[in-house]
């Protein structure tokens, strides 16, 4: 009797194990890693995938590193500290970011978004390769105040990282190149292409409302020469007439030492504006209304003001009340709730 029960229990538990196994296999099969995929309405990326192909293990290592506070001197600040997913990977509510020891930086944290199409990085374009970008925040006194050398040593001493590097790159050796490549693999996967605008362009969702459609026309007439579709930036550096900031940040000039570049900053994308306030390189405008006031009413006719903002003897972009309301309706179609909640990009 007892033996029979034992036998039956054994069979049942074996069946249970089999079911569990099957479920696990199915789950794995269901979550196939997509790799880097260019959205249908996006151009060819600028990033050099030939030297750094995105793999699941590389991406997952990069994600772990992105959220790893060991990248900072006292292990308190990670990339994700100032690049928060729910804020489209910016530092919500901070005009300029605070890093280690609550030291304040001098610029507004830019979004980690569609970087595979960026031709340069930082507000002044000082970094020309995404693989070299992390050196800047890691070594900056106000941000992580650490050396890459020291970060690599911390990772080598960690129980998980040698194995994760082996999975990603075939070797437990943790060096600068593989560390940077993993971070790039995570960052290029931070693609925002699921806004209403994108679904309209791809004919895969509801059409623009009347206000959005009018706003799209206003945008095309008055904004698109710099905020070019579909990334909503032309990656250029321009002086948009907001006036010299309190810290006299000279912008692009610091990189080129060319006086024509004084007070020029990179044109930011208009995607995900709902999540990325405050605006401008120093976060001086807290609302979209303040930004549009600036462009329509308060343009400063300073030296190097971009020619498109100085036309017919006047400066700025005139907007009627109606145009402004429509424009805001259109700009809101560029928000991508999928991007800011995508669990694949979140800290695990």
């Amino acid at each position: 009797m007892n033996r029979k029960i034992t036998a039956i229990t054994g069979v049942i538990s074996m069946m249970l194990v089999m079911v569990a196994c099957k479920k696990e296999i199915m789950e794995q099969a269901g979550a196939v890693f997509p790799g880097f995929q260019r959205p249908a309405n996006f151009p060819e990326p600028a990033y050099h995938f030939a030297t750094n192909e995105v793999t699941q293990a590389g991406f997952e290592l990069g994600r772990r590193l992105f959220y790893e506070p060991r990248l900072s001197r006292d292990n308190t600040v990670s990339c994700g500290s100032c690049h928060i997913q729910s804020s489209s990977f910016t530092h919500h509510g901070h005009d300029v970011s605070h890093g280690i020891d609550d030291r304040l930086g001098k610029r507004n944290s830019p979004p980690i978004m569609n970087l595979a199409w960026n031709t340069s990085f930082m507000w002044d374009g000082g970094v020309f390769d995404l693989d070299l970008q992390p050196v800047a925040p890691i070594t900056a006194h106000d941000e992580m105040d650490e050396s890459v050398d020291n970060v690599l040593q911390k990772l080598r001493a960690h129980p998980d990282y040698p194995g994760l590097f082996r999975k990603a790159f075939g070797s437990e050796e943790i060096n600068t190149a593989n560390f940077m490549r993993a971070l790039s693999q995570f960052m290029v996967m931070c693609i925002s292409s699921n806004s209403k605008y994108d679904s309209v362009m791809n004919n895969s969702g509801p059409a623009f409302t009347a206000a959005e459609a009018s706003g799209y026309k206003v945008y095309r007439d008055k904004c698109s020469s710099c905020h070019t579709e579909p990334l909503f930036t032309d990656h250029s550096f321009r002086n948009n007439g907001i006036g010299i900031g309190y810290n006299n940040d000279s912008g692009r000039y610091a990189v080129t030492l060319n006086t024509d570049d004084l007070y020029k900053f990179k044109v930011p994308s208009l995607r995900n504006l709902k999540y990325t306030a405050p605006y401008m390189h120093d976060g001086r405008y807290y609302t979209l209304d303040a930004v549009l006031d600036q462009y329509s009413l308060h343009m400063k006719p300073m030296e190097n003001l971009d020619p498109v903002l100085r036309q017919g003897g006047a400066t700025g972009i005139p907007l009627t009340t109606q145009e402004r309301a429509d424009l805001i309706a259109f700009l809101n179609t560029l928000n991508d709730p999928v991007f800011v909640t995508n669990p694949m990009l979140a800290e695990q």
Partner: protein
Amino acid sequence: MKYSFRYTSLLFLLFIAASCKKEKQEPAYNEKDLAPLSIEFDNIVGGKNLYLNTETYTNAAGESYSISLLQYFISNIRLKKADGTEYIVPQDSSYFLIKEGNKDFSEALVNVPEGDYAMLTFTVGVDSLRSTMDISKRTGVLDPSGGMDDGMYWGWNSGYIFFKMEGLSDAAPADPSGQHKFRYHIGGFGGYSAPTINNIKTITLDLTKAGIAQVRKGRKSNIHLMVDIDKVLSGTATVSIAANPTVMFSDFSTVIADNYTQMFRHDHTENE
């Protein structure tokens, strides 16, 4: 018999002479058959050896100063024979960091075809091509992983620091920590997407006066250069520490870079 002995001796002497002559002869140039050559960078200040921290020097502006850190990149080494044949050391083996006070970083060790070399050319800094290469090509001294203190790479403005010299001088204003420190971090490869300053400097030195480099297998040839650091502040241009206590990525950096092209002098060559 006597005659025969004399004759043999003469032949023997001739034979020795011939073989001696043969030894001194330059071997045939073969780019696939390499021998070691070192180029030693011996940092001095005027007529004295350079000592970090402990010695005080005076520049042309009359300011006294001491040096706490001195590092610079030497790259793209080329050697030329008297007949014009030139050997370019393969780029992957042609980047060296010279660090004062560290014996392991005091010379550039390269391999070149056996031969007699009359002219040496090298770059102070890192060429623009390597400055823009993929991260996988940035290994060894080019690894951009150094810290703020002794690192030779700018993270915020992608590029190598070619020459880094720091020290103390009463002429320098007190910094927030109270130190009277001067800091010269010189770089700039010309810009990636927009042109900017280019401080890449090429130095060519004639070796014939102080001794050509006779590179042979199984021997060590060492080109001994004296590098007069005094020239950084007291070259063609007189640089005042008081007026320029900190020079990094700026137009004035080109003045210092022009000055430091004058600091290299061939002193002698050891052909052992």
